[in-house]
Each structure stands twice: as structure tokens, then as C-alpha cells.
């Protein structure tokens, strides 16, 4: 029966690859690289006209001249201001929820700390949730606040990628494109159509999408309810499919319900589970393929994809293995073995309809991309399964990563790899014809180092404040893992959690909000700066001395750089958490009381 689970995992990966191949040319057309439309290849011209037709009216209404190109400084300022405007708008919306329409349960204003944390979380594409959706936010707040940021924060990530690639493609260019034009095309011409398609597919599976919010139902086994307990249940619905579709596609991850993608109304069937996993991975994979089209050499895109796959597939095999192996701490009378009529495995915190293997695939997909949606509780994963999930975030969200930002981050690693390789063999480092110099390296170092610093500083400060460390409910090394996971998630803009942690104190809400904002802005803005400085350079002609950047050797070099930074930063912390937990003597089960 384990074979069946592996076949399911393989089938979902094949579906992902097919989806990515289909959307790659579309994504490539969303961001034209040159500033002169006439030079575009014929095949893309019709798509290009359609994208302009869709985004044009919006840009005109916003008072933006369509063809206005920006310098990197202007582009960066636009990103910064757009984030700031989104943050303020969301904060005001959450604080005034009580007096706004479409609040059928009469929910009060979101408390200040939770509102700040949530605004930071959704603006930065993290979607860390320090609240329970069904009891904290009105449908109006969910749709008008969160769904909007799900779109635009993802689109901003794609814009950063576009700037970086324009840096590589353009020559002697003072400008890197127009943020408003890129944003409008990515949101309306790419993410919105995909979200409509995915949302309807999910609705067909049973993901709810309605304006009626709650139905009270008497229990079928009303006689069995203990005295003093309610014999009815309130089934909560709402505009869920529309939000789930974009939270998966935009690697956002913020669920409508507290249980996120484990809730049957967010992820009702194995087919919806496949769709949601494919939706997380397809755009990041398509980004690599589009990269090859943008730079005019498909091999370059495939090489970056290979570097991601080299880092993803072995860990996928590991996490599926760990999550389908029995938990030795459970009593011997529990049957955790797989057979034809029983999936088995450590099912605490997992759903029967997915089984442990598809839950593990979802977990590594959501942490490798910066999505953060979950269909199982990572807190209850085996120690080493939880380690894989954590490690995927700690690698800086460059293995697939967030839409746009993931690939852009990997390109920053590639520049570092080129630079190191250049130093080793004594050649001047270049990537795709552009010389890599001090400015690119300085900016690249910020991109590489800010997330680990935010993660480790945050975890360390939680550890030295006993009252804050007590937010972790599980004892021993697992408690430390919960702290480390929280800051790994916030410091890399993932958003998933070891959910037992009660992160609602002032320290937790504000420290996590700071980690999310710092690591989002201090990776995006340096990446834009790299794009600007590369765009202004000449292209160097390829010579026999040029290091080829599409070979298996180079793929390993890039993957090695990612592993090296990730391992050097996090192995000590991981040794104290999940590794210590995996090695600790097995606890003796307390007998029935």
C-alpha cells in the first residue's frame, strides 16, 4: 500500500510539471523584457495586446502613464509605498470591522496587536495567522482585506523577479520597467484568471463559496451528547473558494478557517488536494521555464529548475518516509501499518482522506514554496519530518520559494556561486554576459543573510525571555522547535506554523511582524537594486574563458551554495530542536487514568 502512496506523490508531481509547462509561455509574456514593444517575438504579440487591453484601463484610471519606465530607485520606492499603503489600509479595515458591512456574526474590531501582526503578515505574502479565521474576521474583512493582499503581494513578488531579469537582459539601460504596469498585468492578466479557474474547480469539489455564513444543525446522535453540552453544531461557510484559490496560487497560505487546508470546506477531496499542491508549485516552476524564454536560452531556465529539484526531491523522499513510518512513542496496541483497508502511519494531526504520504507532500510543497497553507498539523509531524519542513523554509525560500521572489532569491545565490567560482579559477565573474561586481555582491549578501539573521535573532530573544518561551506548549526539545519554526516561518515569509504555539502576546505578535517586514523588504529592495545595476551594464561577449551556467556542474554549484548557507546558519539550532527530539530516549506512555 506504500507503493500506492508513492504513485500518488509521483502523479501529483507530474500534474505540476504539466501545469507549469502550460503556463510558462503565458508568464513569460506578462513581463516583456525590453522597453520597445516592436522587438517582441510574434507568438507573444497577441497575448501582449490582450494583457495591455486588460491592464490599460486600470492604469489610466490610476493616473499612470502606461509606457513610463522607472529607474531602480523609483521602482523600489513604488514597491515600498505600495506595501505601506496596503499595510495602513488593512490595519484600518481590521480595526473598523465592527462598523463595516457584511459582519453577520457581529464580530468586534480585531485587537490592535493581532491587527498589526495580520496586516504585516498579509502585506508581506507571509500569511502567518495569529487569529482563528472563523471567530475573528468577518467575511468582509476576509474578502476586502486579505484576498486583495493575496493577489497584490504575490504580484509584487513577480515584479521583483521581472526587474532582476530585465537587469540581465537589458544593456546600458537606465530603467527597469514600470512597477504599476507590471503589477496590473501580473494581477489582472495572470493571477486573476488562474484564480478564477482554480476557484471554480475547487468549488466543484465542495469548497464552499457563499454569502450565507452559518447554518445550525442538530446532531444526528443527539442522544449521545453528554449533559450540559450543545446538541447542535454551527456549520460555518463563506466566500472560501475565492480566497483558497489565490492563497494557493500566490504562495500566500492564509486560510479562511483556523484548520486551513485541513478543513473539509477548504480541501474536501483528494482531487482538491492535488489541485492545491499543483497550484502552489506550478507558478514557481513556470517561473524557471519563463526565465529561459526571457534570457533567450532555455537551458539557463532548466538549470535553475534543476538546482531547485536537486534540493527538493531528496527531501521529499525523506519527509514521505518519515511521515509514513509509525510513531514509536504510541502504545503497542495501535496499528500504524499500511494495508489494503487501512492507510496507517502517524495520523495524529492528519486527515484520513489524504493519508500520511499526500500530507507529507503538501507539507514540503508549502514550506519549499513560501505558501504556508497546511493540510495537516506540522506540530504533530515526526521530529525529522518536522525538520524537513523547517529546513525548507530556512534555505531562504529559494527552493521554488514565493512566486517571483523564490526564483529571484535563487538568482542571487547564482550570482554568489558565479562570484565564488570566478575567484577560485581566477576569472572575472559573469552571469549571462553581465559582470558581477562589488555592488551586486553586497546586495546579494543582504538578500542571503537577512532572513537567517531575523530567524535566529528572533528565536534567541524568545529563548532568553522565559515568559515568551513558555508560549510553546510541548515539553522538551519539541518546545524549542516550536519557537524556531515560528521565526523560520516569519523570517522567510512562509506563514505555516507549529500550530500549538500561542503567539498572541505583545512580544510574539510584534517580533513576528518585525521579522516578516524586515525580511520581505530587505530581500525585495536589494534584488531591485541588483536589477538596476545590472541593467546599466554592457553585455560582455562570451569567450572560451566564460564559465558555462547551464551544466550539471554549475547546477550543483548553485545548490551547494544554498545548502552551505542554510547548513552553516541553522545546523546548531536544528541540533537543539528536532535532532535532539529524534534522538531522545523514548518516553514511557502514561497508562489510562
Amino acid at each position, binding site marked *: 500500500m506504500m507503493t*500506492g502512496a508513492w504513485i500518488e506523490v509521483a502523479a501529483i508531481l507530474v500534474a505540476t510539471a504539466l501545469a507549469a509547462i502550460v503556463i510558462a509561455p503565458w508568464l513569460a509574456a506578462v513581463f516583456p523584457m525590453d522597453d520597445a514593444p516592436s522587438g517582441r517575438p510574434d507568438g507573444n504579440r497577441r497575448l501582449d495586446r490582450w494583457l495591455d487591453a486588460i491592464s490599460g484601463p486600470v492604469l489610466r*484610471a490610476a493616473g499612470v502613464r502606461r509606457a513610463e519606465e522607472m529607474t531602480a530607485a523609483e521602482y523600489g*520606492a513604488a514597491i515600498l509605498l505600495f506595501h505601506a499603503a496596503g499595510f495602513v489600509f488593512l490595519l484600518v479595515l481590521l480595526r473598523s470591522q465592527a462598523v463595516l458591512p457584511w459582519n453577520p456574526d457581529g464580530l468586534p474590531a480585531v485587537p490592535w496587536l493581532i491587527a498589526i501582526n495580520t496586516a504585516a503578515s498579509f502585506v508581506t505574502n507571509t500569511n502567518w495567522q495569529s487569529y482563528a479565521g472563523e471567530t475573528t474576521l468577518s467575511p468582509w474583512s476576509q474578502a476586502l482585506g486579505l484576498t486583495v493582499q493575496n493577489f497584490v503581494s504575490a504580484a509584487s513578488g513577480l515584479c521583483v523577479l521581472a526587474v532582476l531579469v530585465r537587469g540581465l537582459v537589458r544593456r546600458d539601460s537606465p*530603467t527597469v520597467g514600470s512597477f504599476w504596469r507590471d503589477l496590473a498585468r501580473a494581477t489582472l492578466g495572470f493571477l486573476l484568471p488562474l484564480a478564477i479557474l482554480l476557484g471554480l474547480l475547487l468549488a466543484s469539489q465542495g469548497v464552499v463559496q457563499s*454569502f450565507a455564513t452559518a447554518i445550525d444543525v442538530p446532531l444526528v446522535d443527539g442522544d449521545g451528547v453528554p449533559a450540559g453540552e450543545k446538541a447542535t453544531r*454551527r456549520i460555518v461557510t463563506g466566500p472560501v473558494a475565492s480566497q483558497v484559490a489565490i492563497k494557493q496560487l500566490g504562495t500566500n497560505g492564509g486560510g479562511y478557517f483556523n484548520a486551513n487546508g485541513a*478543513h473539509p470546506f477548504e480541501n474536501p477531496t483528494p482531487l482538491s488536494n492535488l489541485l492545491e499542491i499543483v497550484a502552489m508549485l506550478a507558478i514557481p516552476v513556470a517561473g524557471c521555464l519563463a526565465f529561459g524564454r526571457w534570457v533567450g536560452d532555455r537551458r539557463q531556465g532548466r538549470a535553475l529548475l534543476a538546482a531547485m529539484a536537486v534540493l527538493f526531491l531528496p527531501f521529499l523522499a525523506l519527509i514521505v518516509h518519515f511521515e509514513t513510518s509509525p510513531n514509536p512513542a504510541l502504545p503497542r496496541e495501535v496499528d500504524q501499518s499500511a494495508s489494503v483497508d487501512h492507510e496507517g502511519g502517524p495520523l495524529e494531526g492528519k486527515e484520513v482522506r489524504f493519508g500520511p504520504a499526500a500530507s507529507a507532500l503538501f507539507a514540503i510543497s508549502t514550506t519549499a514554496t513560501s505558501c504556508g497553507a497546511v493540510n495537516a*498539523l506540522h506540530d504533530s509531524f515526526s521530529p525529522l519530518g518536522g525538520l524537513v519542513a523547517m529546513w525548507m523554509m530556512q534555505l531562504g525560500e529559494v527552493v521554488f520559494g514565493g512566486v517571483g521572489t523564490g526564483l529571484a532569491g535563487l538568482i542571487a545565490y547564482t550570482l554568489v556561486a558565479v562570484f565564488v567560482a570566478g575567484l577560485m579559477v581566477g576569472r572575472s565573474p559573469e552571469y549571462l554576459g553581465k559582470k558581477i561586481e562589488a555592488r551586486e555582491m553586497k546586495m546579494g549578501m543582504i538578500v542571503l543573510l537577512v532572513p537567517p539573521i531575523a530567524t535566529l535573532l528572533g528565536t534567541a530573544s524568545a529563548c532568553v525571555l522565559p515568559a515568551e518561551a513558555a508560549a510553546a506548549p510541548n515539553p522538551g526539545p519539541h518546545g524549542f522547535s516550536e519557537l524556531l519554526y515560528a521565526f523560520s516561518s516569519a523570517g522567510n515569509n512562509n506563514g505555516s506554523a507549529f500550530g500549538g504555539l500561542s503567539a498572541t502576546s505583545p512580544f510574539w505578535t510584534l517580533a513576528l511582524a518585525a521579522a516578516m517586514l524586515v525580511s520581505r523588504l530587505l530581500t525585495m529592495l536589494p534584488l531591485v537594486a541588483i536589477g538596476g545595476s545590472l541593467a546599466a551594464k554592457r553585455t560582455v561577449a562570451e569567450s572560451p574563458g566564460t564559465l558555462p551556467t547551464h551544466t550539471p556542474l554549475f547546477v550543483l554549484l548553485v545548490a551547494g551554495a544554498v545548502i552551505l548557507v542554510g547548513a552553516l546558519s541553522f545546523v546548531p539550532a536544528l541540533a537543539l530542536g528536532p535532532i535532539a527530539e529524534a534522538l531522545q530516549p523514548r518516553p514511557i*506512555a*502514561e497508562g489510562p487514568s
Partner: protein
Amino acid sequence: MPTEPLPPHRTRILPATILGQLRPACSMLVILTVITGVLYPLGMTLAARILFPRESSGSLLRAADGTVLGSLLIGQPFTEPGWFHGRPSATGASPFDPTASGGSNLGPTNPALAGTVAERVAAVQREEPSHAGAIPVDLVTASASGLDPHISPRAALLQVPRVAAARGLPMEEVRDLVAGRIEPPLLGILGRPRINVLTLNLALEALAPGGAGSPLPP
């Protein structure tokens, strides 16, 4: 060394650079909010209502007279001996509470997890005296959502003797009912074989008009 003018990408970020983008930042946010925050959810709701009226409104199960019995997708607690029991649920104060979805979040090595599972094992052994073997893991572990509507076929089959005895039905009939309600993996690949506890119990009720916990006289 002669002083060169800074290249364009090195220009200082002037306040004017930033302020010039303030107006488009606000107006783009407003316009995109209207499109993706109002029109998109609204349009999706209308489309889903037309295309998938049942699925989009919660896959509700209704009795012949139209009263809502529950949702196909949301599990309910069953404790009386005349019903098939679902998975343990860790949704706050009362089990299977859709307003507080979530799981236990107990770590894998937390002694509290092993202790809770041991208690559940003892409870199942008490309720199913005729079952000698090991207990399927899904019957003694809490799900992620706390609303998991399914159990494994084996977990349903081991409850057949108790349910049949409590309802005074022949074992064969109840076992056939269970066997006929196994949902196989989609295309033989996607998902695990499983049984929906709520619809199984509703089918059981149709089989035995006597009702739960009130075995027919022998």
C-alpha cells in the same frame, strides 16, 4: 581620479522620487481592491451558485422533509453504541465544532500524546469486546481539522459486531452495508480508501427504523 557623474542606477533616492509614487500607490490599491476584493468574490459566488449550487453551499445532506441533517464533508460526534464512531476530535470544548476547527498540536514525543492515545485504546477495547487485534490508528488519533468525516474501512469493520448487536441487526447485513460504502482512491491513485461516518450512519438508520441505542426486541 576624475569625478564621474553617478550612473543612473546610483542616483540618490530623493524625497521627490518617493512622493511621486504616492498617488499611484493609493489609487492602484483602491482600484485593485475593488476588482480583487469585491468583484472577484462576488463573481465567484454567483458563478459557483449557478454551476455547483450544492457543493458551493456546503454539500448539505437533507432529510426527505428538507431539514438539514449535516454536511457530507463535516464529521459529527457519535458516541452511542448503535452508531459507527468517527475519529477523536480536538476542537476546543466540544468535539467536531465547526466554529473552532483545529487539532491537538501535540508533538510526536509529547508524553501527553502517548497518554491520550493509550486512554482511547482502552476505551475502544472496552466498547468492542469482541475485537482482539490491534486498533487502527485513525480511531485513536485526532485529525488536523477536528472535523474529519472519514475513517478507514478497517476501523469501520471492527465496529460492526457492536453496532449490529445494539440495533439487533444481522452482522452480515451491517458488514455488507459498510463494504458497499468504501470510497476507493480516485482513478485508483488519488486519496486513500475511506468511509464517510455520517452518511454510513444515515444509511444504517434507513436500514433499521428502530433507531439508535434502542435495539429491537429479540
